[in-house]
């Protein structure tokens, strides 16, 4: 498996989350909050798959959405997109392994 460094871009949207956390292959992305959006990016060494961990914090009923992309010259390539509501099954986050194409920007 060929390992390369890809820049992952994360965007989390939530009107009421008190905190969020996201990592790719256990590399934690620092997401800056601007109003209802938390965003950040980081270069991570990955092979043909990557483990994405996401944890939101907040009161029950808090809705969130997260999108993870790979930074590409022609625009971001989508890696995953998920939504949830804190206090419902799956609402406290997820661990998900995503496949990474040999050339994710193609």
């Amino acid at each position, binding site marked *: 498996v060929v390992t390369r460094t890809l820049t992952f871009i994360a965007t989390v949207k939530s009107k009421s989350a*008190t905190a969020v956390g996201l990592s790719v292959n256990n590399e934690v992305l620092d997401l800056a909050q601007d109003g209802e959006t938390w965003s950040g990016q980081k270069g991570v060494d990955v092979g043909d798959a990557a483990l994405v961990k996401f944890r939101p914090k907040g009161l029950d009923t808090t809705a969130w959405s997260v999108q993870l992309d790979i930074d590409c010259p022609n625009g971001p390539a989508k890696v995953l997109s998920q939504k949830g509501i804190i206090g419902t099954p799956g609402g406290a986050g997820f661990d998900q392994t995503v496949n990474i194409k040999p050339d994710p920007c193609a």
Partner: protein
Amino acid sequence: MTSTQSFRILIAVTAVFLTFPSLGSAQQSAFQTGNGQTSLYLQGATAATLNFGDSKASFGRYLRFSNRQLVLGYEVFAKASSGVTTLLSSKIKVPEGGGSFVIGWHQKVDLNSPPPASGSTTDQWALLDLGYSRSAFYVSNAAVNPEDAKRYFNRFRFIGVYNRVQGRFAFGLAMGAERRNNLDNLRQITFQTTLLPAPTDGSTSIVKTQSGFLGIYDEYVAAPVYTDIVYLVPKLAAPGFAKTSIAIDGFTRSNIADTNRFADGGLGIFITEKNAPTKVYGGITGSWNGGKAKVAVVASYVF
């Protein structure tokens, strides 16, 4: 530095924060009582709040990063001396402007533990809230010219805050020290200055009036202790507004210092946006203190 100069500096600082909101961050919650007090510092969005009970308009922001435990924030506010916010209250409005700076610690998100199957989360943070404000009013214990009764008050505040959210509950505890005055304990009066006395054959005179306070004015250091417990009521919306939720706030507001010691408690009912429980549209609070009841309306706009 004169009082006028101090006030101008305060207004200038306020203008800078409003012009460049990304400079700072931290905002008290709109889960607040009629006097604008709360122990909940629920970050999440920039918010402007209008408290009809205290004629207080405020604006605040948080600056947070997911991977850092440092929290920074600010809030600026102004209280009106008159205008639409005074319509619901007969209490004399003392114009006041000020702001606060918040610095604190926020628990780091643990990415190594699996997410709980229930989907509920727990979060906690602790803050220091450093505040300053300045107000102007008229107070005297004798019949004097209003200009001789005019006074300025510099309020300083140093409050430690602990907040925790867990499931449907938000808990807040705030305690510290604050410089206050005793205007709430003084009698509300009207200074009346005769500009043109009634002519000898008439009964109409022209007078100038000024609202103020009668009594012995005093300043002291209070030791406020505030608590809030907010509960999000499941599956309950405001009548006619399906995309809302209802939250109930049980609170206490106390001063444990020797001077003007009191314990105040109450209940608030707030309407929040559905699936955004910290986005408070408004609410109504009822409190009691020594058998005296007080009802206040709070409106909020979060953007």
